């Protein structure tokens, strides 16, 4: 987990409220990713970034938006949280290419009531 932090680590929120998760890296890596992990589904890509202000959608992007205004920070926003977004969210980074080794943060557990 060195060089990658996620905040908050745990969050409980109510349906309909906005939620922002933050991923911060000190590795100066170009690529950053947001995944969600759910039982029976493994890790699924939500959004990713290939540079400052450059982002793209992943497999499960509906209901999520992202922003990257600095190399070190990648924000994931749930505009109006739903119970189906209860999950564990992981941030990952990669230096040379998204196809190469990814380094993961410790995760954020989100519960939407």
């Amino acid at each position: 987990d060195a060089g990658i932090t996620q905040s908050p680590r745990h969050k409980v929120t109510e349906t309909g409220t906005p939620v922002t998760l933050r991923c911060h890296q000190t590795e100066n890596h170009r690529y950053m990713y947001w995944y969600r992990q759910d039982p029976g589904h493994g890790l699924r890509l939500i959004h990713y970034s290939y540079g400052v202000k450059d982002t793209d959608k992943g497999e499960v992007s509906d209901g999520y938006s992202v922003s990257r205004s600095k190399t070190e920070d990648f924000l994931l926003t749930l505009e109006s949280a739903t119970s189906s977004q209860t999950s564990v969210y992981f941030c990952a980074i990669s230096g040379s290419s998204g196809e190469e080794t990814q380094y993961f943060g410790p995760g954020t557990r989100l519960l939407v009531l």
Partner: protein
Amino acid sequence: SQQGEEDPQALSIQEGENATMNCSYKTSINNLQWYRQNSGRGLVHLILIRSNEREKHSGRLRVTLDTSKKSSSLLITASRAADTASYFCATDLGERDDKIIFGKGTRLHILP
């Protein structure tokens, strides 16, 4: 879309035995990676094998890749209690891309 699929879904073995888990995928790839996840933690990269490689070693880990069968195996020799974790394979989709797709994982439990 699921690119890689691990087999078995769960595996329990005695400490000291070897553990083998497999990954099958659907499309041509450039690389295949294996990751480990301990309970409640983030994933940790174990090994990356390229499509032109057939076998790779790292400590007690041995990974093989058979591109003709679109499959890979991860062998952990002389297992230890600390090897208890979930193991995931991840592949790209062949063309130049910026992402990888993870399988659902194999849960490995090492019995004392």
